């Protein structure tokens, strides 16, 4: 019975961690949202304040409109992109695939600031267009800008989900429909789209959640167009008239909304779930004529547009600036001198340290939790499973606010420390790691462990000697992807950081706000290069396995 208690101790430790850093902070937010600080009595005044003032509730409508538009546009690009790349032979498709992933991996707000450089008031493209056509285009800000940035940022996610589903779609289904007299377009509509629908919905939900809770992009490119996360941020962190209790109420509202969409997606996916394994997947065929022209133009065009922000950022990072946003027109490395070699600048080192520390926590906890929930199902591990999924639906800024409110004072003060940054990063990434680890464990037959036990290993020894080594390749691949997402995290870091714990994304954001575009570009380039190198390592260690996010 000794081994049993080891697993029990591990379960309780993990549970304590999540209760302290997820349940308690969220409960506190919920509590604050309905408590009047003066009287300490119950009140719904914060919620009614939100409902009554158009200034507040219009942000919710704004958020919904950009989110829905961006999700639809992202689907409209990502779905055909996946289908075309799966069904038509396109030279360099392997590299296109990598480029699409890269364009997804950089944080959205970098896209926003890059597009300002291109299509903003003084943007390069704006000037070109205006001088060529004699127009007076004011640049894209507000609604259009936000939707543009989010759509280009999000379509890769839809693309990856649908591409994954298409890979599991047996071509004989397609051929069966063809033999029954259906045209290619009819087949896409009646066979392919319905079969990839669950994956499409799962991808669309992720896009929806990301867009709905992102605050960096509307902050930079939104100008007067304020979205809900911007309102939360300004209410909690703004320079004037902050109100923690009102911010808490806003957090509760956003959690309710994401919760609703989470369950809606779950319900729909369950209804239309198919288990598919392709014996003979669709294989790309050589296209001719207009079909060829159209698919080449579409795939290359979209990839080029998606890569534009990255290219802009890298290009401008080598431009000399005369302070702030004015470029002198000469090339130089001054932006790198001002960033990498700046005094007391820890943000680059912090990014790597925090990222690595968070990854270690995520990998160890994620492996243990997925093992516990998959192999030792009990009331305790069920609770653990549910708790660890919470951060999946909770926007980063809300988690940041909740953590900061909880550990700002009292018996455990963590605000301003590296610890709280690392904890927030690891909690945010945990659900993804657990899900991928659970998938890996379910691939391992329970008889593997039983074999080890029958040969004289204790349960824990068999976990260590058999399960861990068998999981390792998959877990490491997942860890690299987690690493890439963690180093580009902004929404909770921006709330939790102090000058000593600033990270790359925080530094980029701060430089953009100060219009130090040169420095921002240098930081962004460092971040992008780190992501690209990590991604190449991922492809190397996994032998070009598909990316799952």
């Amino acid at each position: 019975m000794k081994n049993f208690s080891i697993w029990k101790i591990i379960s309780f430790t993990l549970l304590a961690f999540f209760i302290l850093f997820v349940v308690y902070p969220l409960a506190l937010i919920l509590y604050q949202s309905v408590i009047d600080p003066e009287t300490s009595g119950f009140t719904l005044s914060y919620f009614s304040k939100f409902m009554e003032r158009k200034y507040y509730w219009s942000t919710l409508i704004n958020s919904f409109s950009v989110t829905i538009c961006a999700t639809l546009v992202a689907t409209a690009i990502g779905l055909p992109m996946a289908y075309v790349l799966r069904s038509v032979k396109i030279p360099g498709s392997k590299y296109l695939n990598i480029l699409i992933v890269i364009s997804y991996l950089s944080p959205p707000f970098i896209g926003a600031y890059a597009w300002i450089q291109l299509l903003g008031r003084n943007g390069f493209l704006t000037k070109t267009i205006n001088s060529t056509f004699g127009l007076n285009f004011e640049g894209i800000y507000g609604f259009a800008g936000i939707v543009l940035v989010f759509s280009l940022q999000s379509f890769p996610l839809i693309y990856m989900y649908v591409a994954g589903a298409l890979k599991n779609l047996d071509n004989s289904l397609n051929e069966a429909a063809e033999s029954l007299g259906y045209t290619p377009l009819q087949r896409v509509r009646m066979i392919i789209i319905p079969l990839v629908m669950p994956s499409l919905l799962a991808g669309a939900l992720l896009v929806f959640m990301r867009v709905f809770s992102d605050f960096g992009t509307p902050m930079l490119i939104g100008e007067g167009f304020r979205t809900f996360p911007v309102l939360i941020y300004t209410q909690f962190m703004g320079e004037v008239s902050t109100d923690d209790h009102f911010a808490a109420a806003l957090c509760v509202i956003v959690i309710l909304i994401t919760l609703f969409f989470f369950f809606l997606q779950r319900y729909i996916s369950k209804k239309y779930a198919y288990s598919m394994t392709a014996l003979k997947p669709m294989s790309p065929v050589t296209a001719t004529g207009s079909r060829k022209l159209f698919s080449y133009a579409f795939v290359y065009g979209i990839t080029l547009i998606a890569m534009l922000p990255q290219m802009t950022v890298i290009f401008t990072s080598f431009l000399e600036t005369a302070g702030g946003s004015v470029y002198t027109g000469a090339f130089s490395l001054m932006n790198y001198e001002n960033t990498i070699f700046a005094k007391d600048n820890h943000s680059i080192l912090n990014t790597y340290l925090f990222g690595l520390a968070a990854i270690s926590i995520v990998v160890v906890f994620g492996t243990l939790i997925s093992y516990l929930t998959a192999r030792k199902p009990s009331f305790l591990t069920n609770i653990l499973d549910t708790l660890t999924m919470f951060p999946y639906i909770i926007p980063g800024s809300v988690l940041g606010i909740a953590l900061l409110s909880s550990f700002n004072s009292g018996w455990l003060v963590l605000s301003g420390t590296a610890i709280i940054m690392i904890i927030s990063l690891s909690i945010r990434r945990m659900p993804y790691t657990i899900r991928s680890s659970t998938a890996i464990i379910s691939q391992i037959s329970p008889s593997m462990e039983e074999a080890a036990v029958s040969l004289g290993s204790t349960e824990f020894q068999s976990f260590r000697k058999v399960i861990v080594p068998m999981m390792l390749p998959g877990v490491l691949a997942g860890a690299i992807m987690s690493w890439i997402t963690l180093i580009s995290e902004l929404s909770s870091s921006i709330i939790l950081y102090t000058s000593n714990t600033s990270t790359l994304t925080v530094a980029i954001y701060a430089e953009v706000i100060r219009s130090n575009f040169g420095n921002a570009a240098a930081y962004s380039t460092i971040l992008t290069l780190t992501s690209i190198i990590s991604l190449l390592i991922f492809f190397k260690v996994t032998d070009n396995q598909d990316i799952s996010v």
Partner: protein
Amino acid sequence: MSVSITVDNVTKRFDKLTVIDGLSLKINPGEFFTLLGPSGCGKTTLLRMIIGFNSIEGGTIKIDDNVINNIPTHLRNMGMVFQNYAIFPHMSVADNVAFGLKNRNFSKDEITKAVDEILEVVKITHLKDRMPTQLSGGQQQRVALARAIVIHPQVLLMDEPLSNLDAKLRVEMRNAIKHIQQKVGITTVYVTHDQEEALAVSDRIAVMHDGVIQQTGSPIEIYQRPANLFVSTFIGLSNILKGTIKKNGEVTEVSFGDYSVTMNNIKTTVSNNQKVSVSVRPEEFFIEENSTTGIPALVKNSVFLGVNTHYFLEFEDGQEVEVVRPSETGKVIPKETPVKLLLDTKKINVFVEDGSSSLIEESR
């Protein structure tokens, strides 16, 4: 130094569902013992109780005289071969086989020696440094077997070890398993749903159904003198005929309408006019084209299979029976030929009408 296994009145419950209720059996030292039954009969459950993957909710399991109910699996020293082999994919063949030795106090040299010896026994020495992905199903099977017996377990347990192999390899491997078991002389419990496999490898077989042992005996006993109708139909193929006992002084006959056969091995407890179920295997019929006695039947179809020819016949009441006869030179009885069927009275089995027990004296 082989051990005996005594299963005494054990019960297995999953939540509230009782799968095995008070099952007892005794396995002799060095015996190749098979648990045979359809899927869901509880045979794997019982096997997993012996090794300790399943808890025991009642009764005891003993190795020789020691109750093992509360000994954790990893201390039971039993080797197991799994249905999917469970070869560790991240270790070479040699490392897989050495796995169970590494956490015992053996020196490196001893481990190498033991591994080499056992690889010799299962005839895969040449695969020593291969990784599992480079092995065929039969080779993986041999690795699994080597890994299980290299630790010198008291008991070897095998859970449907051949079910993932193709038909030809299955025959080859079951001979190899039998051969290796005899060589090592280890008490072995083997689980299968394949009756031919069970007949081929076992010293004794326990036929299980719904968590209950229907009959325990040697392959010959199980096949020739089944204890009840279930065993008779599960092992091999049996045609079930309805008959009536006719007692005529010292002579006991079973009558099928106008045709009766005299039986010399019917229990004396039977009564006159008792209804019985008679199980007749396809090879226990004789087909007579010009006989005056026998059960009248019509040949409906025939399949020539080389050594034997299978005939499908229909009685006057519509019942269909299958008959197997050695093929005769140049001749298959044509369709729609009226014939008479006679019975091989030494071989047929007679059961009480509901089939629950045998009325043959030699049947145990």
